């Protein structure tokens, strides 16, 4: 059955992939009901990935506010991406797939995927745009060290959009042996749901942790949104809490939700950057992880029903927060969550929770170049 979020989502893919998506849907439904799946995944998340990640109170970054950071930057491989990669690797093994393809933008999902493939002895091919390979060179080297083959994508925008298209084309060609380990809550059903459910651990932990620390819920929860997987994972811990304001922060030049229109990209109907004829237009962001003209369909739905507010942050604002967090708190954030920090420091309210989705080592060269 085709899953949708309101009018969004669906399976806009060539027929060749439909049986694989049916198989994936059935495999995911079975895994969700299987205690052995959860036990295996939980063991990996605690003993290998380093969960639970801490909640850190910062007081110098935004004087007068109590901002808590959910520290996904401290997860193994340095970003929230590993939650999803581990879950899908366990799922792929259940489905009997021994080859993994993935796309990557900032390289964090590629590194997470290469990591789990090394851990399980799976063949790993990662597609990455040449522009992203340039600006995230350390991650390209990490993937190679982990035994993955990084295939450069040299056409179109040479960024995450084309890398995703090429990963899907590879999957179409090798669908019998290959699992497509998508990195965000985008793509055809059931991927947006699978990735969301694998990232919900962020929000579940954060809700318990902030209640333990403060005895109350935050006034606002803020996360950056590219494809939107760390955001959906964090937000899901608080969607039912009507008094908690939820804010997603897009890169101003890649605001699929803020300035986009309804369209189809990479297998799903969602809010995308497109012209009036439905041709996808270029996104622009200093942050490779947010430099994508689409977004998970569930975010479009949450926008439409008014539960989550989506705002933008510019490259300059993100860079300022990147530097300020390093100087005031001793934490170097990735450029992606630096967008969330930029809006969080000025948001109304005193107790704020921010998803710190990854660490900034990968961005040093790009930031120093600016």
């Amino acid at each position: 059955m085709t899953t949708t979020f309101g009018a969004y989502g669906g399976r806009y893919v060539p027929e060749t992939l439909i049986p694989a998506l049916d198989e994936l849907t059935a495999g995911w439904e079975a895994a969700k009901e299987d205690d052995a799946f959860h036990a295996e995944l939980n063991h990996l998340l605690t003993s290998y990935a380093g969960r639970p990640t801490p909640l850190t109170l910062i007081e110098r970054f935004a004087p007068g506010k109590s901002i808590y950071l959910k520290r996904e930057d401290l997860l193994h491989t340095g970003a929230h991406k590993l939650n999803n990669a581990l879950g899908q690797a366990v799922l792929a093994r259940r489905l009997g797939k021994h080859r993994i393809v993935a796309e990557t933008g900032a390289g964090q999902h590629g590194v997470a995927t290469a990591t789990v493939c090394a851990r399980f002895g799976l063949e790993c091919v990662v597609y990455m745009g040449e522009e992203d390979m340039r600006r995230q060179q350390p991650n390209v080297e990490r993937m190679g060290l982990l035994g993955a083959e990084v295939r450069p994508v040299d056409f179109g925008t040479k960024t995450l959009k084309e890398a995703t298209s090429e990963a899907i084309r590879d999957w179409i060609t090798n669908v019998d042996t290959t699992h497509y380990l998508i990195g965000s809550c985008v793509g055809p059903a059931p991927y947006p749901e699978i990735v969301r459910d694998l990232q919900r651990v962020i929000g579940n932990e954060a809700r318990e942790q902030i209640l333990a620390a403060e005895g109350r819920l935050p006034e606002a929860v803020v996360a950056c949104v590219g494809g939107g997987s760390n955001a959906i994972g964090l937000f899901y811990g608080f969607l039912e809490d009507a008094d908690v304001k939820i804010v997603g922060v897009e890169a101003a030049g890649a605001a699929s939700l803020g300035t986009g229109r309804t369209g189809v990209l990479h297998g799903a109907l969602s809010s995308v950057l497109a012209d009036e004829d439905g041709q996808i237009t270029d996104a622009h962001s200093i942050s490779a992880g947010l430099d994508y003209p689409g977004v998970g369909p569930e975010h479009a739905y949450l926008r439409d029903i008014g539960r989550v507010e989506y705002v933008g942050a510019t490259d300059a604002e993100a860079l300022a927060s990147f530097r300020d967090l390093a100087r005031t708190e001793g934490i170097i954030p990735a450029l992606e969550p630096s967008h969330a920090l930029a809006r969080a420091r000025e948001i109304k309210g005193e107790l704020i929770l921010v998803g710190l989705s990854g660490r900034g080592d990968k961005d040093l060269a790009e930031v120093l170049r600016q």
Partner: protein
Amino acid sequence: MKTLVIYVMAEPETPELARAAVEGGADIIEIGFPFSDPLADGPVVRRAGERALARGMRTRQCLDVLARTRELLPDTALVPMTYASILEAYGWERFATDVEAAGGTSMIVVDVPAGDRPDLRRVQLVAPTSTDERIALAGAQTDGWLYLVTVAGTTGARGEVSPALPGLVERARRLVDVPLYAGFGISTPEHAQAAASLADGIVVGSRALQEAEGGPDALREYVASLRAAI
């Protein structure tokens, strides 16, 4: 007599190219309406689409090309082939209405599989990975003929005709009652002959685009070589 389907990309020169293909022996012309992110297409069709878009070929211009092709070819089946994002932006019903008004015979929407959007009349595709159930569904919903995607893969020439084709034809014959035209990976007269010996017709895309680079005469000659082989 086997059916020969030739794919051309919608550009200003398309009507003359389509006429040359018909003179060479094509029965049906597919006209690609380019999309920026064509997931089902290999490099040749993708690059042709990028060029068409760079030349300003948006939906309105593509419909105009379709209408001009119809003027040159009053009796040939003309089938636009495109992606869902174009229809979503233009309006699904409006697109179907305007394609028909411009002379389109049917259409192919590569990323809207059988079962979805049942109201949209179109040629359905099946693949070697399709289950019997899905082949039957596609056969029941298709408009006139069924497109057999011969390989698990994207469009583009291959070294030989897919070994998956005989099995797919055999299943489709058992499950549906419409003509079966095989496409993806067919480029030479030898491929054409091998595929046409199994199916009721063949579709040639990427190689036809490359031949069309040489102009109408080159395309006519190439299509004639396919016609002679089947």
